[in-house]
């Protein structure tokens, strides 16, 4: 895996969400990702930063253009030092929410991207990594 471009954004307020989404769009446009794939990735990213703001009062996102096995894509890493998730399997279930919401964010984001990885340590924080390839596969 080769990293070609790298950028980090701090997410501390809800006003940071829209500029962050625009940054992801810039990355997508730069590698020639199609509109539908950009929309899927940005929507997933939007869900994940919202969770970061809502449950961990913010964090940071690392944006990277990567190349692997002759494929180009975008990797986003969402890191926070929030309360963490005790039961990951439960959190990944459609409809599970501790925030009296739809509980679609995590499972929906997973469906929208090519690769999804969630690591969490209760009391330490949560890291979600997603990869979406230029051609959506």
């Amino acid at each position, binding site marked *: 895996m080769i990293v070609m471009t790298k950028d980090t954004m701090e997410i501390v307020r*809800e*006003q940071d*969400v*829209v500029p962050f*989404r625009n940054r992801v769009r810039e990355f997508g446009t730069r590698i020639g990702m199609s*509109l*539908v794939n*950009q*929309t*899927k990735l*940005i*929507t997933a990213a*939007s*869900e994940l930063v*919202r969770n970061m703001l809502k449950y961990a009062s913010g964090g940071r996102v690392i944006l990277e253009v990567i190349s692997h096995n002759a494929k180009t894509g975008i990797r986003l890493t969402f890191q926070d030092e929030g309360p963490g998730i005790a039961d990951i399997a439960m959190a990944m279930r*459609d409809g599970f929410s501790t925030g009296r*919401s*739809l509980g*679609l*964010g995590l*499972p*929906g*984001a997973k*469906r*929208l991207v090519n690769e999804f990885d969630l690591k969490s340590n209760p009391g330490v924080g949560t890291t979600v990594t997603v990869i979406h390839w230029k051609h959506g596969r």
Partner: protein
Amino acid sequence: MGPFLLVTIQIDLYDRLALTLENDLINMVSQTGARGVLIDISAVSIVDSFMGRILGNIASMSRIMDAETVVVGMQPAVAITLVELGLTLQGVYTALNVEKGMELLNTKLGDNLELDDDEEEDQDDRND
């Protein structure tokens, strides 16, 4: 038949702005006695679960006040993404553009005036 309200969302809203929209719109429905609300999202490129919930809320609240909501002009990429996300905007009517949305409201409200108790027929074309 009361007037219809038309809201065009021009930019990607951040949360507080979206909540303000929900609030303002419901107040407008109440003040004007509107029977229909058209929300034009043709300029919106991202609808996540937060935005989707706001649209659903507006529809539910309007219905309580006897007004129907139609979301119009959703971009194809947004529709495909929402389906994958798992959000199908239950209880919200949709139309291709403002004109068709207006037609839809007219038929819905016309139907309601003619056969007031035919709620079930009515529910059929809502997304579910």
